């Protein structure tokens, strides 16, 4: 597995937003391709602790997307949404709905900015109210699991 020094940066610009920033060592058309091609999305979207079982993308304004992942233990999570703006390879705007709590609709604006052959991807996620935004951060289906495993790893390391 690859290790990398470019960790994602997460900030909270307002009460109802999450801003995620990540730099990639590649031109933006390749980042866009990895971000919008179903079989490629299937390889990264769920992180390492879960497996993408389905990724559907109809990349046009008004088109829909749906990703499904199964975590260890068979717990399934699904997200879907609709594309509102598609400007390859610069900008994508889409809704995002967690099917476990479909009343909370997110609006995600993803931009890809290239400089010197590297691409900065920023994702601004906006929610109807603070409660939904906080739920997204709290949800940490992956995150919580990640944290447990990190802790387990620390324990394991401490034993060696």
């Amino acid at each position, binding site marked *: 597995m690859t290790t990398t020094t470019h960790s994602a940066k997460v900030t909270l610009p*307002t009460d109802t937003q999450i801003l995620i920033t990540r730099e990639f060592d590649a031109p933006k058309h*390749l980042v866009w391709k990895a971000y919008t091609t179903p079989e*490629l999305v299937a390889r*990264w979207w769920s992180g390492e602790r879960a497996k993408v079982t389905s990724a559907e993308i109809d990349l046009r304004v008004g088109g829909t997307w749906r990703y499904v992942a199964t975590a260890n233990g068979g717990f399934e999570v699904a997200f879907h949404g609709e594309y509102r703006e598609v400007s390859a390879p610069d900008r994508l705007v889409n809704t995002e709905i967690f099917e476990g709590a479909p009343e909370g609709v997110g609006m995600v604006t993803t931009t890809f900015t290239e400089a010197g052959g590297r691409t900065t991807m920023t994702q601004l996620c906006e929610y109807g109210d603070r409660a939904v935004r906080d739920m997204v951060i709290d949800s940490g289906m992956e995150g919580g699991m990640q944290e447990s495993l990190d802790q387990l790893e620390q324990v394991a390391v401490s034993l060696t």
Partner: protein
Amino acid sequence: MARAATTTDAFNAVAEPRRREILDLLAGGERSVTQLVESLGLSQPLVSKHLRVLREVGLVRVRDAGRQRLYRLDAGPLRSIATWLGPFERAMSERFDLMDDVIRELKAQEDENDDDDDALGEGHAPD
């Protein structure tokens, strides 16, 4: 995670842009109200009001130094934001680290195609 009123919750307190500016200034060292008023270009009552909120949530400490009162940052309650965001940020990092792997392969494929359009190259087949 339920949130309390502005005046009792560091999360709410830093949502106000002016209060974040005050915290930024205090991150550079202790300041008096007068210094903050000058730096921010706000009225003293307004600065004092923001400082009061920041003190109530524990983000700002104050001490008397002769005739003036000096305010300083206490990042402790802010660390709880970092703690709260941590698992989410790690999940995102993990996701985009995997995306790095995909992009690296796309880049390698593109380079090979540039080198020799006829070559099949090493290629790869995603499982």
